[in-house]
């Protein structure tokens, strides 16, 4: 399988060339164009109950699409994410990665998706009660609104709620006020997430909250 992310950080899309016999799993409605010979099958996202959980708690879709190449030559598939923003690829080598709800876009069949209780802290911070764990072997594509930046953390770092996209399993999250009570309330920052540990954190450079607070005063 060969894949390339194109389209810049604003409107990323992924071109995947499937070799004969290969297949890829994507979120439903992620396909924007494909070779007519590719076979599409909508499958439940890991069984009925798990699919339900993933839809309502993991910010994913109930069904996922499985594209497989049953022909004897290479076939191309193009996938996109619903929001404007960047898509990144992570090559898993037996390790795992935590994704925020809604960040998952597609993966190779050898990657397993799991839903994990993220804790009340994560929920209060607006990051969802559950988080997605991707593990195994192969490529995973994920994305969010805004450009994606990787930050190497060794120690502690503060990320505003709504900006966290993905992080290594070695990273722990803690919730705190941005500052004192007055500042946290009036300064517009409210609660922030304190990430601890050693590993990578991927942040998105825009948030939907920022977009609405920019646009809303201009609407009448």
């Amino acid at each position: 399988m060969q894949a390339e992310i194109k389209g810049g950080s604003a409107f990323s899309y992924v071109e995947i060339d499937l070799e004969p016999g290969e297949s890829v799993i994507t979120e439903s409605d992620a396909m924007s164009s494909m070779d007519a010979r590719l076979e599409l099958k909508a499958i439940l996202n890991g069984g009925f109950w798990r699919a339900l959980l993933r839809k309502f708690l993991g910010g994913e879709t109930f069904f996922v699409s499985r594209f497989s190449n049953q022909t004897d030559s290479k076939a191309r598939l193009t996938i996109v994410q619903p929001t404007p923003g960047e898509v990144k690829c992570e090559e898993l080598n037996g390790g795992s990665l935590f994704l925020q709800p809604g960040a998952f876009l597609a993966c190779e069949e050898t990657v397993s998706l799991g839903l994990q209780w993220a804790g009340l802290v994560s929920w209060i911070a607006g990051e969802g009660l559950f988080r997605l764990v991707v593990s195994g072997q192969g490529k995973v594509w994920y994305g969010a609104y805004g450009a994606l930046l990787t930050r190497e953390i060794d120690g502690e770092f503060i990320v505003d709620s709504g900006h966290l996209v993905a992080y290594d399993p070695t990273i722990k999250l803690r919730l705190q006020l941005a500052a004192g009570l007055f500042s946290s309330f009036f300064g517009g920052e409210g609660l922030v997430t304190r990430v601890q540990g050693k590993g990578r954190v991927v942040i998105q450079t825009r948030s939907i909250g920022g977009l609405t607070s920019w646009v809303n005063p201009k609407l009448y």
Partner: protein
Amino acid sequence: MTALFNIRMHHSLDAAQISEAAVHFAKLFKIEPEKAEQLLHKAPVVIRKGASEEMAGKIGTALQKLGITISLEPVADAAATAAAPAPVAAPEATPEAEQSAGHAVNDGGTVVSPPDHPGYPFRIEGRPDFSFLTVMVPGEQMLKVEASAMATMDTNVEMKTKMRGGLSRLLTGESIFINEFHARGGAGEVGVAPGAPGDMGHVYLDGNVIYLQNSAFVACGPKVEIETKWQGLTKGFFSGESLFLIRAVGQGDLWFNTYGAMIEIDVDGEYVVDTGNIVAFTEGLEYKVSKVGGYKSLFFSGEGFVCRFSGKGKVWIQTRGVQALLTWVHPFRPVKKRG
């Protein structure tokens, strides 16, 4: 002592793809394109010896975009690295290359403050679509940031909320507060994400004055004063954004954001900008709001009012206007009827 690795690259590119990838590869490692091409043909090959894990990660993400994967081979210890024969190539990943490695290939490039920059060290990533500002605030110094724009910060940075000059901000629907980030006990990093999708500009003020469109302010140094200025009724009413402008004066850095891409224009004489596309301009430029042509074109050309600058100075414009966005989106918004 941290673990060191030799980085070996692999790819399955064909000859045409190699020559395409070689251009980027050469740029990334600051070597000749011919040499890069030769190197790519030799793959799998060790391209760097004794790299730290962090460095390997950066090189990995940069090369992944070219369809090249890397594998890491642990090096026993530093002595072994030194004793090892010279690598096939010793590409030196430059700081710029490393920083731009986190982005899509066709972005506008990361802006990094020059070493002799008189203000705070900073960099702007994610340009031009979703620019993101990271400022390194020196120990015991302070940075002023637009309310709720902070996205990341170090734990030794302390936030304080201050009232911002003028209650007129209440009328504009924007926050009347501004946040001050103090670095305590050493330098601290603050990451700022503006609300609007777009680019970001930086100027170093040295006593001069810059006017910003009302929602363009991102951040500034402690000695820069930010005031909201009434534009006057005719100017304000027709200038698209709002009745107010921000006047920035003092000494230090000033960052502002645009919606869309940003164009910097040196004005000498007269220049006309659509009112919705003004982001910032230097003091000394006179401006008046007027119609482009006669009354017929005012109503039918779709241009409406424009801003006519005259004098000598600089104007920053944005390549999209928020009103145009709203007009475009509005028919698709679910609207609840009032009353």
